[in-house]
Structure formats: structure tokens, C-alpha cells
């Protein structure tokens, strides 16, 4: 199985609003992927569909090769941390880990205990009295304690202070370093995502707008500054701003930029995401020339 999560025409309707519309994507295994997009774009919906908390209205989703709905075997291989990090507030931290032990056949209790102790969290403290950062660490211990193949996290950094964020990401990366786990996490904090993620999925207005390797996306997208012009040979213009003296173009490179009048600048991941979000009609999806997912599938067939 080459894709940790694979969706085909996935759609979800709530009442009369489409939370997701015709999404087809494949997340390769072993990647640490960022899921970004504006509020209401469908990130939580997609993640919930991926862990069996929701049923699709149309299309399909396969997690680790199977439908996750009412599927205890596949859930045993997925670790999930929901938005706002739900825990049983009346339980002590120790009891939270007991829950993990009783409900997951592949649970590694010593591993989970160690993760919690490492962050100086008192095992006898009640979860309701933990700080935001401590809650996040406990939830992560719960998710990684079953030694999953896939970790899914819904905005885990949202209510954390900068130090707690750094510590949480550090713990997450340790987990990623230890095993071949695939990670998918959604967040607004794109600068944090750039440090840790090597794969990017952008959801905008219920659709997948961008998907691909971060390295490749950053290599193929540039900002060009030069004389006032709205097109350039060798690149597709995603967005442009003009003054009477100068044009600044955000482009995707398709060939060679021969014109020396353009200065080429690198972009950050945040620049890239913001540029695409501002242009809902633009997209960077795997096609016949590129696309890791497509290549994987072709290789698998051959």
C-alpha cells in the first residue's frame, strides 16, 4: 500500500452546505504532511472522514487501505488527536493511559508512560487541571501509545503558547523519527509547518487546491520582480501586483525564464499558501507531468 490516505471524489454535505466537494488525493506513506486552509474549508471534515468519525456523502476514502468506519482493526493502527484535545477531565493522567491500554490491542504502556513522564507531567493529576501544553502531550502519548502507522492531528497547536508549541512539535518529530509513521496535521501556523512538514495539502472552499512535496513546490514556485508586465515566458502566473514602475508576479515555473529583466526570488511555504488561497481558481495538483501520488500508483501497477 503506497498511500496512507486515499480519497476518490470525496464529498460531504451538511444540510445544504458542501463541506468537501469532489476531493481526490493520495497521501504517500512516510510523509509528514501539513493540511492547511482557511476556516470552514473542510479540514476537520476531511480528517474526521479519515478516522471514521464521519461517513462520506459521495465518493470514498481509504485509510491504510481500508474504510475506517466501524473498523477496529484499522483504528488500531491510527492515532488521532481531535481539535481542542478532548480528554476525560475527571480522569487522572494515569487513568487516561489505562484507557489507552484497555481499548487498544497494540498498546505499549511503558512507552506511553515514558512520554508523559519526560514532560514532567504528574500522573496523578486530573486531566481537567492540566495546562494546554500538558493536555496536548497527554493526547499525543495516547495517540502514539498504540504505535500507529498513521498519526492524524487536528489543529493540535491552536491553543498552545510558543514554548508549548515547540515542545509538542518536538515530541511529534521524535515519534516520527522512531518509526515509519505517516503524519497528517492541520494547522494555521504555516511557519511551524514549514519546519516539520515535507508534504503539503491546501484545502480551500471544500476543494483540494494544492498538493505535493514541499521541496518540489518551493523549487517550482518563485516571485519575479521586473518591468510592468502581466505575463512571462516559462512560467504560469498565479498572482500579480503592479505599480506603474514595477510588477511583482507569483509564478509556477514551467520552463526556463530566459528574460534577464526578471529577478527571481525564492518563496517561503507561507508565501506559497497565501498566494494560492488568494487565488481560488489557481491550483497545483498532480498531473501528467508531475505528481508523486500518480507516480506511486503507476509504479505500483508496473
Amino acid at each position, binding site marked *: 500500500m503506497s498511500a496512507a490516505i486515499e480519497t476518490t471524489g470525496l464529498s460531504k454535505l451538511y444540510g445544504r452546505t458542501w463541506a468537501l466537494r469532489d476531493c481526490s488525493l493520495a497521501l504517500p506513506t512516510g510523509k509528514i504532511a501539513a493540511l492547511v486552509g482557511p476556516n470552514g474549508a473542510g479540514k476537520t471534515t476531511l480528517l474526521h472522514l479519515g478516522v471514521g468519525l464521519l461517513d462520506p456523502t459521495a465518493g470514498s476514502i481509504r485509510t491504510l487501505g481500508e474504510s475506517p468506519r*466501524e473498523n477496529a482493526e484499522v483504528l488500531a493502527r491510527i492515532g488521532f488527536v481531535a481539535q481542542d484535545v*478532548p480528554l476525560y477531565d475527571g480522569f487522572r493522567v494515569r487513568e487516561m493511559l489505562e484507557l489507552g491500554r484497555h481499548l487498544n490491542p497494540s498498546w505499549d504502556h511503558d512507552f506511553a508512560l515514558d512520554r508523559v513522564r519526560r514532560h514532567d507531567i504528574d500522573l496523578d493529576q486530573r486531566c481537567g487541571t492540566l495546562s494546554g501544553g500538558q493536555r496536548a502531550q497527554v493526547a499525543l502519548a495516547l495517540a502514539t501509545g498504540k504505535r500507529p502507522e498513521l498519526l492524524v492531528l487536528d489543529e493540535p497547536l491552536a491553543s498552545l503558547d510558543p514554548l508549548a508549541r515547540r515542545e509538542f512539535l518536538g515530541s511529534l518529530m521524535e515519534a516520527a523519527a522512531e518509526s515509519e509513521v505517516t503524519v497528517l496535521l492541520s494547522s494555521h501556523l504555516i511557519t511551524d509547518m514549514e519546519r516539520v512538514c515535507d508534504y503539503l495539502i491546501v484545502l480551500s472552499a471544500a476543494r483540494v487546491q494544492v498538493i505535493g512535496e514541499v521541496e518540489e513546490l518551493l523549487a517550482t514556485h518563485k516571485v519575479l520582480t521586473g518591468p510592468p508586465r502581466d505575463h512571462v515566458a516559462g512560467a504560469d502566473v498565479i498572482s500579480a501586483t503592479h505599480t506603474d514602475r514595477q510588477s511583482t508576479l507569483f509564478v509556477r515555473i514551467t520552463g526556463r525564464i530566459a528574460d534577464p529583466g526578471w529577478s527571481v526570488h525564492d518563496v517561503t511555504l507561507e508565501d506559497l499558501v497565501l498566494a494560492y488561497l488568494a487565488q481560488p481558481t489557481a491550483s497545483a495538483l498532480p498531473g501528467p507531468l508531475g505528481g508523486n501520488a500518480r507516480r506511486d500508483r503507476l509504479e505500483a501497477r508496473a
Partner: protein
Amino acid sequence: MIWLAWRQHRQQALVGALGLGLLALFLILTHVGIANTFTSTGLQSCLSAPGGDCGPIAEVFDRQYHGFQILAALFLVIPLFVGLFWGAPLIARELEQGTYRLVWTQSVTRRRWFSTKIALIAGGSLIGAAAFAAIVTWWTGLFIRADDNRFSPGIFDIRGIVPVAYTLFALALGVFFGTLVRRTLPAMAATLGSFIGVRVLMTLFARTHYMAAKTVSAPLSVQGGGFKFGYEDPAGAWILKQVTLDRAGAIAGPGGGFDLNFLNARCPGLIPHAGALPTQAKLASCVREVGLHFITTYQPATRYWAFQGIESAIYLALAAILIAASMWLVRHRLA
């Protein structure tokens, strides 16, 4: 999963056990006094001696404990508490607090999660309700001996096995509404309303029809200074309706009495003048002429346990349907 279900609900279980324990203690202590009064009024000896009318003594005994009628009302309500505080929050709380996103992504299907929780809570409710029913049945025993009204509505509902069925029904109702409405307080309100509604409808309208009622007829006769009915209510029966009819079947008056004007219309001159009462002889002959008799429609005491069984079965069936519906909602309609 059993560990989780117990850990989550152990506080509720302890509170329930404590409440039941306190109630039991109260009933045991008060029973001492009741037993004493039972003997001291002479009711005990009167009832053990065959024949004899212990009615007046029984009335003395009953009057001592009028205040305990409030208890009977409380006993009626106790099954509802299980529905409100154990049933309604069971699913609704997890949805309200968002912890369903935590527990449904552990390696357990919703079916197993729900089944285990329901089994544990229903099991606890069953044990608690059975203990409750047993102790109330025991405690009301002396009152029943004084006056056997165990088949009448209100008393029927707090003794025997039906309280257990009501409790499981209330639980199922609470769970169902909690799952349907997804919020605890509105679910509690819905459980309260529908439990009362179903109980009232069943008791007032359905119960009378579990088996075809029996009727007995007794002629009315005038004797001595009053009326002798030559009739006594069947012992321990549930009296559904009593009416006085003439030979032809026309109703002579409301309930178990008769209307003097009705008789006067049939026997002219019965009432000498307005406001006066007829003479004993004239009344007696008129009653005989008109053929007044007294019809009692009732369910005999021997059917008590059959009725307990039928009613329990109905409530248990309703509970089962509600639980099945809740399971379906959990697996297919929630999230």
C-alpha cells in the same frame, strides 16, 4: 471496555447505591413502628381470627399513616430518576463534551462501545430496581393486609416486578433521547415528559384491557334502617366500574348509588312532597318492582401476577425497541 464503562459511571453507581441504601434504612426503621401499631390496634389479632369484620380497626390503623402517601408518590417517581440521571447523559454527555472524538478513535467499534455501556448500566439498574421493588413490596405488606388494594392503580405500580420494568424503560427512554437530541438537558426534559405520558396512558387506559374484565351482579334490597347490598366487593380485586341498573338495563344513578328521582318516575307517589324522604315500605317495594341491581366490573385478584407479567413485558419490549433504535442512531446517524 468494561474497565472504561465502570470508571466513567462508578460515581453514578455509588450515588445510586447510597440513595437506595438510605431509602432502605428509612423503610426498615419506620417498619418497626408500623408493625407495632399493627399489633397494638388489635388488627393483627383481628385478622388472624377467621370471620369477623376488621374494617373499622383497619381504618384506625390506616389513619395513623396517611402521611406515608407521599412516599407512595415518591416510589412512583424513582424509576424516572434512572432515566434522567443515568440514561439521558449516557450518550449526550460524550457528544456535548466532544470526548466521542477520543473514544471512537480507539480500537473499538461504536457497536461494542455502546453495547458494553448499556449492558453495564442496565445491569446496575436491574439490580437496583429489583432491590427497590423488593423492599417496597415488603414494607407495604402490612398495609395490604389491612386493606388489600395491591391491584389498584398507584399501588400496583410500586410493588411486585413492574417497578423493574419501569426503571429499564425509563433508562432506555433517557438513552434514546440523549442519542436523538445530543444534548443532556433537552434529553432529560423529553425523557421526563414522555415517561410520564406513557405511564399515565398505560395505567389509565391500557391496563384495564390486558384481559377481558369480569362482571358480577347483585340485587339491591331494602332492610332494616338502610340498604343491604347482599354484596361485597371481591376481595383484593381491581374494581373498574360500578353501576346500578334497573331490570331493563337503564342506569339508575351514578357510580354505586341510585337516583331517587329515577325511582320516583317509575313509582309515582314515592316522594310525598318536595324535600321529603320516602317511607321505608314504599322504597322497598319500588326497588323490588324496578328490579334494581348492582353491577361490578372488575379484574379478579387471581389475575394480579398475570397483569404484573403482561405490563412488565410491554415495558421491557418498549425498552428493547428504544435501545435498538439508539444503537442504530449511534452507528449510523451520529457524526
